[in-house]
């Protein structure tokens, strides 16, 4: 019957400074779930990866002919930044990705709303979206070129088409996952269709939407590889394609690193917004 307690400091003493120094002994069952979030912990994994890469390169385990050494890549980055090529290409690419992302989000979210809130909408929208999703993007490009030419329109559209799918799917699922109790509540307080969407559907679907957004942001960057092979003279996708043609391994690896960083960053930003927007949640995420 002895108590399984452990002496541990208060998480933070209560406001009254007189109490700050007091004992704090709490019963400590094994805490299930991941525990408190630690700041900057997310840097560990990528750092470990970087370390591994560096170590493998330095010891010769990793053939620099296949994967350039980190320092070569850094040097290459320096050169490309010095002559302005990296920034220029990035800026162009960012513009394309941003536009595609924007339209994709709007289209995906709207379609998800229509298809999620009416069986008729679902009947007509959901199937075609699933088909679109099942057809390899590369195979669609000839059709897109046919219908939209080879200019910026077609590039942005291709990104849009890639982006809207996860947004649609996730928002749709998030929306369909809203607890029926809140729908009943909405009905009894006399919310109209618009009010229902604004007060119940959108906030309720928000967690799903954000997950879709995480797919979408990286998806937009990745699409550049494909679209910037078509009638482009700029962008990181073009830069990498050129480097592949000429076998410039260091530029290819730099491109990959840039993709990795862009992906991590965009994903991190979405997660940050997500955390702020979903602060009402009391989940395992903590």
């Amino acid at each position, binding site marked *: 019957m002895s108590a399984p307690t452990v002496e541990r400091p208060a998480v933070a003493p209560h406001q009254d400074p007189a109490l700050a120094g007091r004992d704090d002994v709490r019963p400590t069952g094994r805490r299930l779930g991941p525990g408190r979030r630690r700041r900057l912990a997310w840097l560990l994994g990528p750092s470990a990866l970087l370390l591994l890469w560096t170590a493998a390169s330095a010891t010769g385990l990793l053939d620099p*002919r*296949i994967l350039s050494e980190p320092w070569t890549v850094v040097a290459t980055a320096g050169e490309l930044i010095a002559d302005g*090529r990296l920034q220029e290409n990035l800026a162009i690419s960012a513009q394309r990705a941003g536009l595609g992302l924007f339209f994709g989000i709007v289209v995906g979210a709207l379609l998800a709303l229509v298809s999620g809130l009416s069986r008729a909408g679902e009947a007509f929208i959901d199937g075609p979206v699933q088909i679109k999703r099942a057809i390899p993007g590369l195979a669609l*490009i*000839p059709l897109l*070129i*046919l*219908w939209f*030419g*080879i200019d910026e329109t077609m590039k942005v559209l291709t990104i849009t088409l890639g982006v809207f799918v996860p947004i649609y799917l996730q928002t749709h699922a998030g929306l369909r996952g809203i607890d029926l109790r809140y729908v009943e509540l909405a009905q009894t307080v006399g919310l109209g269709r618009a009010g229902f969407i604004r007060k119940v559907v959108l906030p309720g679907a928000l967690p799903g939407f954000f997950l879709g957004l995480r797919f979408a942001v990286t998806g937009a960057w990745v699409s550049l590889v494909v679209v910037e*092979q*078509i*009638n*482009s*003279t700029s962008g990181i996708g073009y*830069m990498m*394609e*050129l*480097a*592949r*043609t*000429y*076998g*410039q*391994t260091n*530029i*290819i690896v730099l491109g990959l690193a840039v993709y990795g960083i862009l992906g991590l960053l965009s994903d991190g930003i979405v997660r940050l917004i997500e955390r702020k927007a979903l602060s009402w949640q009391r989940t395992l995420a903590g």
Partner: protein
Amino acid sequence: GGSATAGNAQPTQATSPLATTVPAGTTITVGDPSVKVALELSGLIKELDFKVEFANISGGPQTTEAFRANALDVGSVADIPPIHATWTGLDVRIIASVFRQDAVNHPLYELGIAPGAGISSLQDLRGKKIAYSPGQAQGALVLRILEKAGLGQDDVKLVELPSTGDVYSTALASKQVDAAPIGGVQIKRYLSKYKADGASTLRHGLRDDPGHLYSPAKVLDDPAKAAALAAYVEVWGKAKRWIEDHPEEWLEGYYVKDQGLSREDGQYLIDAAGKADLPLSWTEAIERHQKTIDLLAKEQKKPELVAADLYDTRYETIAGTAFAAAGKAGAA
């Protein structure tokens, strides 16, 4: 089965003579990225007194896709794409050709040999794994090499691999294939990286040098566009001469500035290309082209084509004349 749409286009030659002036308001879209740079560097672009839009599109698949979408009027490719385009039911015509002098010693591709593969002559390919991409020029080259070596498809092991980027070099280096055609800077890179491991390249001794400008027949049937294309081909011939005569500017302006290559790489490519040859007659070229068609038709089980039908003879002399004239003018 499954070849329903292939080869059913019955080519008919356009006969109406080319107009000498380009009607006002004519626009052509050109997929010829390197020449665009040459035109800009040389200032020749000013000679084009009608609207030319350049698209950064080259290579067979992309140009044919763009042709179909009516997004492109002329493209720059090697000798295989016009064949495949015709087989897929797209009626195209070659309107200009460029070759290399001493082509056998200035090949576009060499056969990369994997470290330790033990291949020192074409005959050694028997029983070896060779990277093969059926739709691409490299694929056709592999078939021609086998034919030259007196081997059939069954005597070797063709490994289907797309030849995008540095996939072939990688496949060679990791010994997934014993031989693979690699071209351009990839040759230099492959050797500099893996020579120490025993990698080598093998000259195939064939001509793989043809480069063509080609257009959809539909475009060439339009007198205004046909005239504009004639004007473009003329300037194109001059540009080829300019490149020949200004290797330093070309190296700096194209390879280094535009393509982001090092000077050494650029110089390597210029040296490898040797001197350009723009003949005034296509007869020989058509003969060689016919051989390639015959081989592909046999090996890939496709319908026969007449090579001469792929050329629009109205343009036969334009590029070569301009090339020669520009040379004389430059020398004068």
